[in-house]
């Protein structure tokens, strides 16, 4: 008889300890991502365009908040003030008012026109592709990116970094919170200069992808067989690492093709580019062009 309750208590203890572990895990996760709760809004980003887009976003946001306060206010007042339980008697004659209906049709039109103007102005600027100083072709593939610096002879692939890739496997046993920039890190970032208008030619070679770096306010679909254009110009004083993701569902590993942009000062970028060119196109060794070795090369 005594065994019964004991087993029961043991099971309860096990269950409780498991629940405790789960709770502790949940808390530790929260602690790791300290900034998580604070992540409530878009960030202004590091280009003039991303700041304009942020401004538009905030304009629309506050406009919506304003509309919501007024509309929800009237709703809440009606719900509160005209309760039957409070003895409210319906005014069944109040079924139509041309004046009011005209007002609440015209007023939204006015508000919309007022917001359409800055939106259209910004949109026109985003489509202004003139005067770029550097052109990079971005090619999405399943699942990573290829970057080709046109006319500079530099071309490389960029994929999810190995550490994230190992941790993200089902049942990897790796605590992903210990992986630096989990899922937002690549083996070779795209290196660009700050203070320079960089034009991207975006395309893909299998399915549709989308190249998105929130800090630049740039998202452009990469479509196989077609080339899209977009651009950004990072503030000269804001070098750094900027991270983004593929934004268009592109198959199994869509969630695992991040983008990292390494923005460097113009001089640092030039140095990097030179080194990269040397690495990818090493100058022919002196003896290779020597006549004596020519027959050997030909024999190969």
């Amino acid at each position: 008889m005594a065994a019964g309750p004991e087993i029961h208590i043991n099971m309860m203890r096990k269950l409780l300890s498991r629940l405790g572990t789960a709770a502790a895990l949940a808390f530790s996760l929260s602690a790791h991502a300290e900034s998580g709760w604070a992540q409530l809004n878009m960030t202004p980003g590091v280009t003039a365009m991303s700041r304009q887009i942020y401004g538009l976003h905030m304009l629309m946001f506050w406009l919506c908040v304003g509309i919501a306060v007024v509309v929800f206010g009237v709703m809440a007042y009606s719900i509160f003030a005209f309760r039957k339980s409070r003895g409210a008697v319906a005014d069944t004659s109040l079924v139509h008012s041309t004046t009011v209906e005209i007002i609440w049709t015209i007023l939204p039109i006015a508000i919309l026109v007022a917001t359409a103007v800055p939106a259209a102005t910004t949109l026109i600027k985003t489509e202004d592709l003139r005067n770029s100083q550097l052109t990079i072709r971005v090619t999405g593939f399943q699942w990573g990116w290829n970057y080709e610096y046109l006319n500079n002879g530099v071309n490389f692939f960029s994929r999810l970094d190995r550490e994230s890739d190992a941790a993200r496997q089902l049942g990897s046993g790796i605590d992903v919170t210990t992986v630096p920039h989990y899922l937002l890190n690549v083996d070779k970032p795209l290196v660009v200069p700050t203070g320079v208008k960089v034009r991207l030619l975006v395309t893909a070679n299998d399915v549709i992808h989308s190249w998105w770096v929130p800090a630049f306010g740039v998202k452009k679909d990469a479509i196989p067989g077609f080339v899209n254009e977009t651009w950004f110009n990072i503030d000269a004083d804001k070098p750094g690492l900027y991270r983004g993701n593929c934004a268009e569902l592109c198959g199994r590993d869509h969630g695992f093709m991040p983008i990292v942009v390494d923005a460097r000062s113009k001089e640092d970028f030039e140095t990097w580019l030179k080194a990269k060119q040397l690495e990818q196109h090493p100058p022919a060794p002196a003896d290779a062009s020597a006549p004596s070795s020519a027959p050997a090369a030909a024999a190969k």
Partner: protein
Amino acid sequence: MAYNDHAATDHDHDAHDHKPHGWRRWVYATNHKDIGTMYLVFAGISFFIGGSMAMLIRLELFKPGMQFLDPQFFNSMTTMHALEMIFGAVMPAWTGLANWMIPMQVGAPDMALPRLNNFSFWILPFAFTLLLATLFVPGGGPAGGWTMYPPLMLQGGAGFPMTIFAIHMMGISSILGAINVVVTIMNLRAPGMTLLRMPLFVWTWLITAYLLIAVMPVLAGAVTMLLTDHFFGTTFFTAAGGGDPVMFQHIFWFFGHPEVYILILPAFGIVSEIIPTFSRKPLFGYEAMVYATASIAFLSFIVWAHHMFTVGMPLAGQLFFMLSTMLIAIPTGVKVFNWTATMYRGSLSFEPPMLFALSFLFLFTIGGLSGLMLAIVPADYQYQDTYFVVAHFHYVLVPGAIFAIMGGVYYWLPKWTGNMYDQTLAKWHFWLSTIFVNVLFFPQHFLGLAGMPRRIPDYAVQFTDWNQVSSIGGFAFGLSQFLFPYIIWKCVRGGQRIGNRAWEGAHGLEWELPSPPPFHSWTDPPSDALIQRGAAH
């Protein structure tokens, strides 16, 4: 008397309740109420199947790192969840409500085309069996999103042609259902039931039916082109053969945008029935409501490309679709203002249908406002394909369409069964749903703005907190939904008997019939006096 014109009521008045029994009653069903019931039960089952897929999604997203699902299976869950909920839950629920209510509301004995009605329902179980069966074939279920964009969709395995065929069947079912609604409304209205005396639910459904007839063939064409691209060597969507993958998106969204109004217009109709009833005051601006619905339907055909602002459209195209999209805010605003004005100086009580309608009013408006933000193209570059969009469309579809369906069921259930349901439990259902739907979807706005893309099975650790909140909200919301079938079941089994008019302030022809109504609703057309009393707007 005009009654003689009413051919459908001339015959066989003695055989009102003659109907087959047992399984034949359902398989051979031609009665609008039986078919309506089958549609609603089917929608309920799909709601739970699609909901369980959502639970799996939220379970995997509870923590960063892959815990339970393979990424490919995760993708097929997001795809199937959408197909189940849109084509399996919301659309059949609307058709079920249309079947039950339209004949009663326009003074007709039944739907105009009863056998077609039977056929349009019975296609559905086969279509969805086929769709769900894709989960068990090599290559798994469709995993390219419910939008089925090529070339990704063309990479599907054996499930790909099954999905296409299932969608064809759903489309046929919807078109036949819509034809039935149009023919019923146009031909079986009782004498004296003029168009502008019709209840708003009938109006919104009439317009919805036209949308369905217009766009379901477009979807059928789009998926057929996918099929021929995959199997018959065409290159509609392949650049290498002179095609264009973006063309699919244009065609799909030419269907897809009217489709989202197909999902929401009948909700506008139901809310326009419920709010006047529980405000004890006729609907404010009835005609404006009708015109606003028609305007929204018209605009829905010229805004499709706002779903694809990042595909690289010409500037003029982006400007056009931005402005046309912003225009939708005007008729939608008129509707929200009219509902509010209906409550203003009314005499309000808060029975379950009203609670759901009020929740709709607030939360649909939130979804509408985020929709306005999404219309702004440069800002949309940042929102596109993020959780902000996920939050937006779930706000208009869950507390929008689905709460309106629930409100409609709680509104008319006493009429259907003759019994009042357990209102206390229904209020529990309401409060749990309303609280947790916000816990579930509101944080997704934050996630999207902070940079979390949609349709990803795993995420960077800074998104953990709000994903956990969202998942907890999701589980609680999902669990709360079990109250709904329980309350309905209990009500069908018995309850406090009610008279013709279940609610004090209810107007309309359905409330002039007994509860439950006779098998053939209006075998004798209602008198003009009844129609006038019902159409007191």
